[in-house]
């Protein structure tokens, strides 16, 4: 029982981290109808920037306090992400207005390549460290109830809390600003949105910057867990089943989806994996998503797919 | 300008074999040979008078072919159709009119099985559409000879005009995957089948006077021509009942005249029954035999055009003062 709880909690916390990456997908899809495969690359790019600036800033400025350095690095990295957002809008999206979803998806794959190469050219392809002081060791709870207690990883816990806060903030932002409506309009029909004067370029810079911010936070959290190096961009793959399970257009969906996938894959790996030979979590997550989709083709909270004649 | 346009234009005239013979086994509808009139060489010239002048007096209205009784359809809280009944007789042109959102398109959707009404019966040639299994319903209706056009153009955007209309023949094309895969110009049932249906389609293309656009992707055509292609695709199915959803929206008078001509010809020559939704009262009053008037889910009038035009309810709800 104690172990089951541990698995459950582990799953929930991993799921929260997936949600964080998934959130980036959802934001951009909601606002422009673009399925942004570059989200993973953005996570890597942001994390690389953060890690390297945290390393370079003391060298350049002689600053030493960890908090100050990290804060400064964060700000510089964020500025960089805004610049990236602006460039993407300027060079790519604005030239692909009103194109089909698959073309846009493909363009984001091109961006992925570019960012991967660019990030590593700028910042190097070694392993780098992000140390924002997240605690690494586990704590044990309820030791009197269960033998050995229930282990909770502090780092994951902190990360999950940050993720939750971020998600809550973004949900509120979408719910209570007029921009939210405009964003959804853009996603529905670029041209019509243009025709009534919604400035696509501004909207896209904003949204991609916010997605860049989310990527940065995800990059810091994942980076401090995994170390910052190329593989970080692969965590985006883990977010894909989350996005479709929750629904491509739903911020809360990204959270619930993340939790379901996180818990589902951990439980399946632990309790089913050994019987099947192990390593099943990767496809199990997708099969889980698939099953949910068969029941609701638009994901749990996604907007209904409209077909009408 | 380019020379693409006319490369195949002469094809139709040179080939005369009847499609009915080669695919006759599967064709339940009237022989399509009538199209050959329309395909007479002169008709390909847009300037020349069309050679299809069958006097309308020969039209005879037959038995009830489609009967709608007590249909009720609602979406969540919205009652799109409420206890609607009417019938359609064979060979007649039946118009459905009514204000926007009255449920006209929904009515068509119920007839050919896109929507499943909550209550009532749609009897088509003795078969209750509502009782067909949802998975095969659309196919079954197509097989029984119901074809339609769509209000919001539902053409296959990535395909050429020819392919769009050819796809209307899909129902009748039988060669299997292997025959298709190994199709060749020398010996192949797939090639023969394709050619036979192509002839039929070419006649439709000539009839609708869209020869010049045969190979153009439909997405590039102006709206009005797309509507014609939509009609062409439906005609290719050799339907017994043709459901037309605002076929003349977005056309000017001249084009409406053309469209009327097509509809009347089809109706005259194949005896195809036509159910027509249209907002242009001129058209409706001129060409339809009987008119149903819907108003927000209710039926408020049914009868000959003149009767409907005189109906107080209809004037208030739909026509307005000036008509």
């Amino acid at each position, binding site marked *: 029982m104690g172990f089951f709880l541990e698995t459950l909690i582990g799953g929930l916390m991993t799921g929260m981290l997936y949600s964080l990456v998934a959130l980036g997908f959802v934001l951009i899809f909601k606002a422009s109808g673009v399925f942004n495969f570059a989200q993973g690359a953005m996570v890597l790019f942001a994390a690389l920037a953060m890690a390297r600036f945290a390393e370079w800033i003391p060298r350049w400025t002689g600053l030493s306090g960890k908090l100050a350095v990290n804060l400064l690095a964060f700000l510089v990295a964020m500025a960089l992400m805004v610049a990236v957002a602006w460039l993407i809008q300027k060079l790519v999206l604005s030239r692909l*207005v*009103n194109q089909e979803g698959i073309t846009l998806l493909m363009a984001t794959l091109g961006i992925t390549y570019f960012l991967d190469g660019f990030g590593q050219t700028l910042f190097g392809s070694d392993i780098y460290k992000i140390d924002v002081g997240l605690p690494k060791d586990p704590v044990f709870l309820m030791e009197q109830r269960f033998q050995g207690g229930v282990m909770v990883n502090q780092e994951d816990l902190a990360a999950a809390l940050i993720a939750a806060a971020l998600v809550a903030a973004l949900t509120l932002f979408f719910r209570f600003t007029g921009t939210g*409506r*405009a964003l*959804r*309009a853009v996603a*529905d*029909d*670029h*041209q*019509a*949105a*243009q*025709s*009534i*004067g*919604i*400035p696509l370029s501004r909207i896209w810079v904003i949204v991609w910057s916010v997605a860049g911010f989310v990527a940065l936070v995800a990059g810091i959290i994942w980076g401090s867990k995994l170390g910052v190096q190329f593989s970080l961009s692969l965590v985006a793959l883990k977010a894909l089943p989350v996005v479709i399970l929750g629904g491509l257009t739903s911020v809360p969906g990204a959270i619930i989806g993340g939790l379901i996938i996180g818990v589902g894959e951990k439980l399946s790996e632990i309790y089913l994996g050994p019987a099947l030979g192990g390593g099943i979590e990767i496809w199990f997550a997708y099969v889980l998503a698939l099953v949910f989709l068969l029941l609701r083709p638009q994901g749990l909270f996604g*907007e*209904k797919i*409209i077909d*009408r004649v | 300008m380019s020379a693409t346009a006319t490369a195949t234009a002469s094809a139709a005239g040179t080939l005369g074999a009847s499609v009915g013979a080669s695919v006759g086994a599967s064709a339940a509808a009237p022989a399509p040979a009538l199209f050959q009139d329309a395909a007479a060489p002169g008709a390909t010239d847009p*300037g020349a*008078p*069309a050679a*299809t*002048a069958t006097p309308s007096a020969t039209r005879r209205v037959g038995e009830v072919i489609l009967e709608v009784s007590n249909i009720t359809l609602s979406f969540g809280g919205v009652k799109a159709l409420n206890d609607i009944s009417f019938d359609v007789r064979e060979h007649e042109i039946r118009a459905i009119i*009514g*204000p*926007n*959102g009255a449920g006209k*398109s929904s009515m068509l959707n119920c007839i050919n099985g896109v929507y499943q009404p909550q209550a009532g019966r749609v009897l088509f040639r003795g078969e209750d559409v509502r009782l067909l299994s949802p998975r095969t319903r659309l196919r079954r209706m197509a097989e029984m000879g119901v074809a339609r056009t769509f209000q*919001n153009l539902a053409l296959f955007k990535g395909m050429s005009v020819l392919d769009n209309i050819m796809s209307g023949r899909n129902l009748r094309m039988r060669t299997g995957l292997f025959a298709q895969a190994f199709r060749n110009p020398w010996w192949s049932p797939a090639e023969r089948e394709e050619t036979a249906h192509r002839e039929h389609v070419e006649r439709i293309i000539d009839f609708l006077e869209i020869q010049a656009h045969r190979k153009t992707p439909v997405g590039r*055509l*102006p*709206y009005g*021509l797309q509507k014609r292609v939509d009609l062409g695709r439906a005609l290719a199915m050799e339907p017994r009942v043709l459901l037309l959803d*605002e076929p003349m*929206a*977005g*056309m*000017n*008078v001249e*084009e*409406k*005249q053309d469209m*009327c*001509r097509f509809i*009347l010809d089809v109706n005259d020559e194949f005896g195809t029954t036509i159910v027509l939704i249209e*907002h242009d*009262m*001129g*058209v409706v009053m*001129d*060409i339809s035999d009987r008119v149903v008037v819907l108003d927000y889910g209710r039926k408020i009038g049914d009868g000959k055009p003149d009767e409907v035009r005189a109906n107080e309810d209809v004037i208030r709800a*739909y*026509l*307005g003062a*000036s*008509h």
Partner: protein
Amino acid sequence: MSNVLLNVNGIEVIYNHVILVLKGVSMQVPEGRIVALLGGNGAGKTTTLRAVSNLLAGERGEVTKGSIELRGERIERLSTSAMVDRGVIQVMEGRHCFAHLTIEENLLTGAYTRKDGKAAVAETLEKVYTYFPRLKTRRTSQAAYTSGGEQQMCAIGRALMANPKMVLLDEPSMGLAPQIVEEVFEIVRDLNQKERTTFLLAEQNTSMALRYADYGYILENGRVVMDGEARALRDNEDVREFYLGMGGTDRKSFRDVKSYKRRKRWLA
């Protein structure tokens, strides 16, 4: 003629680098007037409007020759939203409502560029609802699930929400019931007279268009083949025959035109 608001000067438009659609179209829209753009299918009406509102890029089209001026300012290079800022708004052909938004949300997005506060927007919303009562009853349905005509009303209403100075209306009457068509044109006249809104109107319903417009251009095959005061056009014999469906003095029955077709004079 009063002062020219919009001046289109011999523009040529090419789609996809190869398809030449407009072959030197020129026209003027005077401030505060209603100008109708008539012509058959594929004549290039929509293309002309797109060129003005700069919506061509999304269709992979571009203006390759000529110029377009709004109050003397060259506007070919402006973005669509800049045009909206200048008060020019287009109602796109084929509705283009935001499918997932409700009718009311659709209308409210129309007011995105408004800076004059919530109250003023609410007021315009009420105005649109009085113009189109049907929209009010369907305000909470998702646009995709409303009928064709309702969507058309929604598209028009959405443009009106921006309080435009000039409206490019592309086939407003399409798919609307006769009563509503009349109402739409009444609205046009209303706005034109009360708020001095200028209209450029691409329309197939020629009789309606010429009844309400001050001036008309007839486009065929990417060229302006005729223009003139609405009244003069209405009396032109060819226009009467091909655009108004009149044989002699009466309207011809659609049943009778069936077997008879004549060449247009200007194509000869």
